[in-house]
């Protein structure tokens, strides 16, 4: 039996924080499991892969903030627009185009906020982001991405998959496909949702034409955090162990007889599923985090639902 050591690792003792550390879980609307240590067994296609360069990034945290303030009010300094505030929209931006909700000649609207400069690089940021300004030289703002899609769903699809239509892998799926995962106890790509769901829905973390193992697995905020995680009524942890033992005893008979390595993988997946039933609820349980931690993340009810 390959990887038997893996099967017997006891994850029940791992702390939540340890877990987060090893899983490299991003927090936010979309979190991408991170990367970068090719120490897993070769048969697992999700195992992390050695990229063709020496990577420096340790984590990717991707936040998709549905309903957030516009970039024009936060990060994107548009002095010319402010200068022309209240003027009629130039014809070339308007004439002959069908624009949602707009019937008459629209007016231009610049931000009402000041955009002071920060750091040695002189980064312009909205006056209401003074603390962010203190780390301005450590930030990289990409302001070159633009799209003609002005409907929510196609624009979100475009942002996440590069195409305004269905059928393409999301960026998280590409990362999972290209770099794999170090994490043995969670799916390679995990999605967390708080508040409203983006209009394009599940397609943002769909794997498109990539194998579905690279599809984002949704951690839900109500019900089971992962679908089908809880045992059915009348089945306890001991019963479940007995069932998994039974399934894997019989699967091992088949493996011995038939020799298909897929059976070995399935045996491992049942063990992983059993571990996830204990580890995921613990991972999702923030009740034992300290007051300071909660304050730092802003999880109080009045602070909105983002970090809940």
């Amino acid at each position: 039996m390959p990887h038997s050591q893996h099967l017997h690792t006891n994850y029940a003792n791992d702390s939540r924080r340890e877990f987060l550390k090893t899983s490299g879980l991003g927090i936010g609307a979309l979190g991408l499991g991170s990367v970068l240590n090719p120490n897993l067994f070769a048969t697992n296609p999700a195992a992390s892969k050695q990229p063709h360069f020496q990577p420096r990034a340790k984590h990717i945290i991707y936040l998709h903030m549905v309903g957030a303030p516009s970039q024009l009010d936060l990060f994107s300094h548009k002095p010319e627009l402010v200068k022309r505030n209240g003027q009629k929209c130039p014809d070339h931006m308007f004439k002959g185009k069908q624009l949602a909700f707009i019937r008459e000649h629209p007016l231009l609207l610049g931000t009402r906020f000041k955009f002071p400069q920060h750091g040695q690089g002189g980064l312009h940021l909205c006056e209401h982001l003074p603390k962010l300004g203190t780390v301005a030289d450590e930030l990289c703002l990409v302001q070159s991405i633009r799209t003609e899609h002005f409907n929510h769903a196609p624009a979100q699809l475009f942002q996440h998959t590069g195409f305004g239509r269905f059928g393409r892998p999301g960026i998280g799926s590409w990362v999972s496909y290209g770099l794999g995962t170090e994490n043995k106890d969670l799916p390679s790509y995990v999605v967390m949702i708080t508040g409203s769901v983006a209009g394009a829905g599940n397609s943002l973390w769909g794997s498109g034409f990539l194998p579905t193992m690279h599809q984002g697995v949704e951690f839900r905020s109500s019900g089971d955090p992962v679908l089908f995680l809880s045992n059915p009524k009348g089945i306890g942890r001991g019963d479940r162990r007995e069932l998994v033992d039974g399934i894997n005893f019989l699967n091992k008979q088949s493996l011995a007889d038939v020799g298909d390595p897929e059976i070995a993988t399935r045996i491992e997946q049942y063990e992983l599923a059993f571990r996830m039933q204990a580890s995921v609820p613990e991972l999702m349980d923030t009740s034992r985090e300290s007051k300071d931690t909660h304050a730092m993340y802003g999880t109080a009810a009045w602070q909105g639902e983002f970090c809940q």
Partner: protein
Amino acid sequence: MALLWTAMATESAETKLTDGHWAYQKPVRPALPRTDSDWPRNAIDFFVLHRLETNNLRPSPAASPEQLLRRVHLDLIGLPPSPAVVDAFLANPTDAAYETIVDDLLKSKRYGERWARPWLDLARYADSNGFQADQLRDSWAYRDWVINAFNSGMPFNQFVTEQIAGDMLPSATSAQRVATGFHRTPTCNVEAGVHPEENRVNQVIDRVNTTGTVFLGTTLECAQCHNHKYDPFSIEDYYSIFAFFNNTPLEVKQQGNGVTWNFYGPTMNLPISTEQQTKLKDLNTRKEAAVKRVSELKKAAKTEQLAWEKQTLRALKESPQWTVLAIEKFDATGNPEHELQKDGSILVTGKNPDKSTYTFHAKADLKRITAIRLEALTHPSMNKGGPGRNKAPVENPNFIVNEFQVETGSKMVKFASVKASFSQNHWAVAGSIDNDLKTGWAITPAFGKPAWAIYRLAEPLELKSEAKLKFTIIQNYGGGRTIGRPRLSAIDGNPNALDLPTDIAVILKKTKRTKKDDDTLAKHFLKESPKLKAEEQTITAIDKQIGAIKPASTLVMVEQDRARETHVMLRGQYLSPGDKINPGTPSILHPMKKTLPRNRLGFSKWLTDPTNPLIGRVTVNRWWAEFMGHGIVTTEEDFGTQAEPPTHPQLLDWLAVEFVERGWSMKHIHKLIVMSATYRQSSRVSTELLAKDATNKFYARAPRLRMSAEMVRDNALAISGLLSTKMHGPPIYPPQPSGIWRHVGRNAPKYIAATNEDRFRRGVYVVWRRGAPYVSFMNFDAPDRGACVVRRPRTNTPLQALTLLNDEAYIEMAIAFAGRILNEAKGTPEAKINYAYKTALGRAPRAAEAIYLKKLLLKRRTHFEKNPKEAALLISGAKGWKPPEGMDKGDLAAWFFIANILLNLDETITKS
């Protein structure tokens, strides 16, 4: 200079390569390789054996009869063999018996259902629009058409033509039009502010790309913005195919002038379903009967009318007068003030209690009473003059009489009927004599004028002189809705003419009537007949039900009368039109016959031209992959220059030629495959085979393949005995966790799990909402059907384990399976375990397996004997299945453990 030369050389080398690319040459039937072996059973095996031998491999031994039987069932119908079929075949596992089984399976209705699934992935068939709102749409008739086409053995060229251009065939049948649903499946955005033309262009792009993938195994989409980087297709080629599809109408429509857009596009009404037909027939029968009764009543009415006329005329002549009753005592609960008026009414004034019951004691000056009248009169002291009192903040002077009662000598007087001057909607005056305090008589909005109600007595009330009458008016609604000025009167004469309209009274009194008078009279009599009224209400109700039976509809392709002009779209942008382009086919492929029309129909005929080098190869390759795990060309979606070269080019060509020459018969190719020795090998993976050919590209063994998502569920349903084989119709809603369909947008549909047999029908019928497809299918690698999918991956994940272990649907199946074992297998636990294995895996258990499960069973049985509540809790997890009467719950719960384990086995969800 040197650089330039290299570039040129590369280019010419590439040109040469693509010109000669094998996939663009028409396949020619190759001769069978020679062999001395007696292993081959048909042509397939000669090619496979040849490759094995050149790679120093040998075929595996034949599969056991058990394995072969289960394999061929799963491959052809997607369901396991029943225990009876297993027994029959094991008793006689001959070639002839096998062939009979194959023929039966190919004839089974389940065959079309199983093979529709991969086709619907190609057709990106779903039941919703996709994008933000993702509303449901009806095109399930297309899914049923595919199932029927496969079952009926429709030749594949016809299958293609009808899907691409069924609507354009001469005198197209409705089935042929339904078939065009193939290209009405693309997603459609109806978000506010959508641009209909952009939407339409996207849909046409989807049609072109899907057509390229499905029928040509070509990545045409690469030529949408520029010439194909690898294959010989130019951007002009792309838009000349685009032109064939560029003539359908817009598919989103603005709602009025607003920002709301609706899914639109051509639909077609379907013939009504059998169920609807039965219902309609029943309704029509009932309507006919009612109509007949009406005409009989009308006939009988002629004589009845004469009697009524006499009676009414007499009543008119008697012309009874109302006698106002003299009130001797009046009481009102809540103690408002009151004063007797000169006209005999009581004016209630002062404080207005929330609720009030009025009691009147009156002397009857009449010897006989046939009817009583309650009047609610107006008075300037009331708001708007009344007739009801009102209490702030209630401004309207309404009243509500919950009950009106009359007593004499402590006996309640019975009423026959009641009529009122006016009754408020939902507050009919009949409510004042129904002994129900929740109902009553009210009069909004007839304010400022008197109201009356006439109560006819069931029998005339004979009174002695000095007899007393007691009247009670219960007004319990609250808000001070009471009568401000009540008055009571009575008559002693014939009450029949009391509510007669004046014009009718005039006619009745005439000595000579005109024809018009007769008609008016007859009409009035019929209108007032209670029996006729009832029948007419019945007919109205039936008509409403008949009207509600609407035919279902489906999405179809329709050609516009005037063709659109097609231009090359520069960089693939619809807003950047380039040169005008005519419909046409790529020059690298077979020419389009001059006789063919340059439209979709002509294009479909071009696709199925026997000289098309691609369609036969691409099609048989996909089928081969379904049976064998991967295609002869492993890149099933791409036969271009970047494709993997075929592992068995001659076999591929032989099958492609055979397919076309044998009438484009899918079943013929399927039978050839399952009858081959290649297919009938054992699937055992020896260490040697794993080392020499891990991916089994030479087929030295049969494949072991995890079932598709739908098959995993169908198989478990069949094993559990729950499977319903009901076919066709609107999509079904099996149980899934709540909160999956939580997506945004107007008209958001709700997911309500079926509680009837729809709960247990096959996966091909399960509703497919693109934004949130059936979750357990997603866990087993089902796509979202947003775009054409040729190959589903086969992953092996912990989520699959969790699904089979915990999904309510699978728990229910395991409980039902346990029930089935107890119900159908008799005797010792060993015998039952044996039966369970035969049902789930089509084989007997290995000794170690049987011993293990028996031990677990006995342990569990003891446990549940001691803990019956735990057993009951476990069994209650099956919401759609109930154990038969008398089945021991402890026993059932113990067998659940065995059933659950068997349904979770790798072998159970694997075709081996």
